[in-house]
C-alpha cells in the first residue's frame, strides 16, 4: 500500500529536508529505478517484488484501451504477449533512439514509417504510430510512478544513464523522452561511470579501473582514474550496436539453418526464435548443453540441442569485436594493461562464460563480477542523483566524464574537420571563426557531425545550425565566431557572434535524427488528457519552480558576499528585480514570470561571474594553505 503524502509539485522543501530523487537505468532489455533512502542506495521493486522492469511496451486498440483505462501496458505483462502480439509489443526500443530510417536494418517485426516533416521514424501499432522517444517515455512514466508511490512524494529530479558511446542524437532523444514523461533530468550519466560510482564507493580503492559494459544492445569500455572521490574518465570507447541481442541473433540464425526453417518467417516465429535463443544463452551460462524447442509456422514441434562448445564458436566473432574498442581506449588513455587495478563487469551479457574468459585473457586479470551486473548502474545513478539534488552538500564526489566521439564540421569537398576530439573532458568549448562570401550576407549554415572518419559520408550527421541576423557587410569582412559547447550531459549547443559588431546571431537547430521543438510540444499535448490546459499548467509550474530557484539562489548568494562584491547601486538594482519576480511568481502569468526571471539574470550576470571567479580563487588558496602545511 503506497504511502500518501501531500506535497506540492516541485516545491523546494525546507533546507534540511531530504529531497526525493532517483537514478534510472533505461536499458535495452530491462530498466530499473533506484533511490537513496536512509543513506542507502537501493533499487525499487513493484507490487510483486520485482526490481527489473522489462523494457517492453504493448499497445492496445481503442476498444481494449477503453476497458483498461489506458492504451498500453509496460513490463512483464507486455513481455508475455510478445510472441502472440508481435507487431504491437515493442521491445529493445533503445536500439532505435536517435536513429533514422536508413539506420534501421530490415526490422521485419515492426512496421516503421516516416511522418511528413519529421526525421524520426515511427513504429506502427494499433494504438497509433509512435517514435522510440514516446515508447521510452512510457517506460519512464511507469518507473516514475513506481518511485513516487514507493517514496511517497513527487520527485525533484532524476539522473538517467546512457551508454557512454551514445552520440548526441541518442542522448538528446533520451532527454526528450524524460521531458515527455514529466521527469526533470538532473544529469545524463554514462553507464560505465555510474557503475564505477556504485563500485568505487563501496570498496574505496584509488587507482585505475576498467569498466567492461556489455548490455542488451550496446557495448562500452571506460577507463577511469579514481582519486580521493574524483572519478576521472580517461578514455571511453565502444559500439552502440553490439550487445546481448546480437548473441541471441547468432543463435536464431543458427536455428533457422540447422532446423531448415523456410523464409519468410512470420513475425510471431521471429519473436519465438528470439525468446528461445535468449533462454538458451542464459541456460548455457551454467550448463554445458541445452535443448531448444520451437513451434514452427506449420505447427510442427522442432527440437535441437546446443552445446556450450558450439555456442562459443557461434559467438566468438562477436566477442572479438569487443576487444577492438578495448585497445582503442587503452591507447587513448595512455594506460598500460598492467596499471589497471581491476576490471568491473557490467550488464547482463557479461554473465556469458566466454565473455569473462576473453576479458581475462586480454587484461591478464580475473574480472570482478561480485556486484549484480543488472542493478549496479541504477544504484550508481541513484547515488549521484542524491548528491546533485542537494542532499549531501559536504560530499566531495566529482564525476569528470569525456566526449566519446569527435565532433566536426563539414567543409569543402565532403570532408569533415574535427573541432573537438574524442575523449576530451567535458564540459568543453571550442570556437571557430568564419566569414561571409557574399556582400550583404546575413545568414549561414553549419553542418555538425560526429565520428572519427574524414568523409561526411562516413560520419554521423548531427544537425544543421542556421545562423541568422549577421549584420550585412562586404564579403569577407565579417568575423563570425561560432562556439561549440558540450555540456556535462554530453550535449552540444552552438552560439555565434559577429565579432566586429558584437551582434549575437540567432540559431535555429535542425536535428538530423531528432525531434524539433514543435514535435515535442505536439507530443506533450497529445500525452496530456486535457491538452492545452495541462500544457499551460505545466509551463506555469515550471516557471514558478525556476522563479523559486532563482530567488533562493540570489538571496543566499547576497547573504554570503554582497558587501564584498557589489556596489550599493548594484545591490539596490538586484533587490528591486527580486521583488518584482516575487510578485509575479504569486500570480499565474507565465510570461510575466519568465520576463521577471530574465530581468534578474540581466542584473545579476556580472555578480554571478564575479562569484565564479571567487570560487576559483578560494579553491586555489585552499591549495596553497595545504602546501604550507606540508
Amino acid at each position: 500500500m503506497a504511502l500518501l503524502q501531500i506535497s506540492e509539485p516541485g516545491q523546494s522543501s525546507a533546507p534540511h529536508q531530504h529531497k526525493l530523487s532517483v537514478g534510472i537505468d533505461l536499458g535495452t532489455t530491462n530498466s530499473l529505478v533506484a533511490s537513496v533512502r536512509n543513506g542507502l542506495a537501493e533499487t525499487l521493486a513493484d507490487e510483486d517484488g520485482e526490481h527489473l522492469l522489462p523494457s517492453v511496451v504493448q499497445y492496445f486498440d481503442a476498444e481494449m484501451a477503453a476497458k483498461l483505462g489506458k492504451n498500453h501496458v509496460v513490463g512483464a505483462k507486455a513481455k508475455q504477449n510478445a510472441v502472440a502480439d508481435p507487431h504491437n509489443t515493442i521491445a529493445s526500443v533503445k536500439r532505435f533512439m536517435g536513429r533514422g530510417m536508413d539506420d534501421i536494418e530490415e526490422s521485419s517485426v515492426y512496421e516503421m514509417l516516416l511522418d511528413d516533416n519529421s526525421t524520426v521514424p515511427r513504429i506502427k501499432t494499433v494504438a497509433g504510430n509512435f517514435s522510440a522517444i514516446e515508447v521510452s517515455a512510457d517506460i519512464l512514466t511507469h518507473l516514475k510512478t513506481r518511485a513516487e508511490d514507493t517514496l511517497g512524494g513527487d520527485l525533484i529530479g532524476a539522473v538517467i544513464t546512457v551508454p557512454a558511446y551514445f552520440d548526441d542524437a541518442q542522448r538528446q532523444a533520451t532527454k526528450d523522452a524524460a521531458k515527455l514523461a514529466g521527469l526533470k533530468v538532473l544529469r545524463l550519466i554514462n553507464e560505465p561511470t555510474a557503475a564505477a560510482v556504485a563500485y568505487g564507493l563501496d570498496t574505496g580503492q584509488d587507482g585505475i579501473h576498467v569498466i567492461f559494459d556489455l548490455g542488451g544492445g550496446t557495448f562500452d569500455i571506460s577507463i577511469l582514474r579514481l582519486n580521493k572521490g574524483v572519478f576521472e574518465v580517461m578514455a571511453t570507447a565502444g559500439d552502440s550496436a553490439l550487445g546481448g541481442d546480437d548473441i541471441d541473433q547468432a543463435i536464431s540464425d543458427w536455428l533457422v539453418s540447422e532446423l531448415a526453417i523456410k523464409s519468410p518467417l512470420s513475425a510471431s516465429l521471429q519473436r519465438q526464435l528470439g525468446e528461445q535463443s535468449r533462454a538458451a544463452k542464459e541456460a548455457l551460462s551454467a550448463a554445458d548443453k541445452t535443448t531448444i524447442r520451437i513451434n514452427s509456422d506449420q505447427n510442427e514441434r522442432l527440437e535441437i540441442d546446443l552445446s556450450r562448445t558450439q555456442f562459443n564458436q557461434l559467438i566468438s566473432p562477436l566477442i572479438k569485436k569487443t576487444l577492438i574498442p578495448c585497445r582503442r581506449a587503452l591507447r587513448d588513455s595512455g594506460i598500460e594493461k598492467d596499471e589497471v587495478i581491476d576490471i568491473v563487469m557490467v550488464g547482463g551479457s557479461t554473465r556469458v562464460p566466454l565473455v569473462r574468459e576473453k576479458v581475462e585473457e586480454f587484461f591478464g586479470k580475473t574480472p570482478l563480477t561480485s556486484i549484480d551486473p543488472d542493478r549496479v548502474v541504477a544504484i550508481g545513478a541513484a547515488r549521484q542523483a542524491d548528491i546533485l539534488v542537494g542532499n549531501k552538500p559536504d560530499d566531495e564526489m566529482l564525476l569528470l566524464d569525456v566526449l566519446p566521439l569527435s565532433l566536426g564540421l563539414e567543409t569543402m569537398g565532403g570532408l569533415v574537420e574535427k573541432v573537438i576530439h574524442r575523449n576530451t573532458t567535458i564540459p568543453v568549448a571550442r570556437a571557430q571563426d568564419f566569414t561571409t562570401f557574399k556582400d550583404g550576407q546575413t545568414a549561414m549554415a553549419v553542418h555538425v557531425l560526429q565520428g572519427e572518419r574524414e568523409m561526411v559520408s562516413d560520419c554521423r550527421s548531427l544537425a544543421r545550425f542556421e545562423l541568422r541576423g549577421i549584420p550585412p557587410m562586404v564579403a569577407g569582412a565579417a568575423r563570425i565566431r561560432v562556439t561549440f559547447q558540450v555540456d556535462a550531459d554530453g550535449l552540444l549547443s552552438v552560439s555565434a557572434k559577429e565579432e566586429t559588431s558584437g551582434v549575437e546571431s540567432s540559431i535555429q537547430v535542425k536535428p538530423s535524427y531528432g525531434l524539433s521543438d514543435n514535435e515535442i510540444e505536439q507530443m506533450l499535448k497529445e500525452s496530456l488528457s486535457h491538452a492545452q490546459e495541462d500544457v499551460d499548467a505545466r509551463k506555469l509550474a515550471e516557471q514558478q519552480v525556476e522563479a523559486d530557484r532563482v530567488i533562493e539562489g540570489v538571496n543566499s548568494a547576497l547573504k554570503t558576499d554582497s558587501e564584498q562584491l557589489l556596489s550599493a547601486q548594484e545591490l539596490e538594482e538586484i533587490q528591486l528585480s527580486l521583488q518584482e519576480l516575487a510578485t509575479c511568481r504569486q500570480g499565474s502569468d507565465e510570461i510575466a514570470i519568465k520576463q521577471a526571471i530574465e530581468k534578474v539574470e540581466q542584473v545579476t550576470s556580472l555578480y554571478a561571474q564575479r562569484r565564479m571567479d571567487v570560487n576559483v580563487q578560494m579553491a586555489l588558496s585552499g591549495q596553497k594553505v595545504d602546501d604550507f602545511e606540508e
Partner: protein
Amino acid sequence: MLENYFELLGLPVDYNVDLPVLNANYLEVQRSVHPDKFANSSDLERRLSVQKAAQINDALQTLKNPLKRAVYQLSLSGVELKDNETAMDPEFLMQQMELREKLAAVKQRDDPFEALDKMLADVEATLKGYQHLLGQLFSNANEEALQKAKNTVLKMQFLSRLQEECLNLEEELANEF
C-alpha cells in the same frame, strides 16, 4: 575577464610545470565550478558553470601537454604560429622523411611490433630533449630565445604527428590479428 591559463590553475608562468601540483590544483578548482555543483541551481548559474568548467578543462589540457603548453606560452609572448608554417631546417626535414619511410616499411617486417616500439621510444627521447631545451629558452624570454623556441615547437609538431602515425599503425596491426 581574460586570465591566462597559468593563473587560472594557480601556477607561475613557467614552461617547467610541476605536473602533480597542476593536477591537484585542477581538481580543486574544478570541484568549485563544475556543473554537478549547480545541477539544482538557476539557469544562469548552470550556464556560467558550464562555461567556466569548460575554460578550466581547456587550461588543463593546454598546460598538461608539452607541445600545447609551448604553443600557448609563445602566444602569451606575442608569437603566433601560422597554419601551414613548417620548420625550415633541411637536415631536420631529411630526418623526418627517413623516419616516415621507415614507418611505411614496418608492415613488411617480421617483427613489426618491436620495430614500432623502438621507433616510439626514439621519438619520445627526442621530444623530451626538446622539452628540456624549451624550459631554458622560455626562462630567457628575449627575442632570440623566443625565435629559437618557435623553431623548436615547429619541430615538435612534426615529431608529434609521426608519433600519432606510429600509434595508429600499432593499433591497426593489433586489430588485424
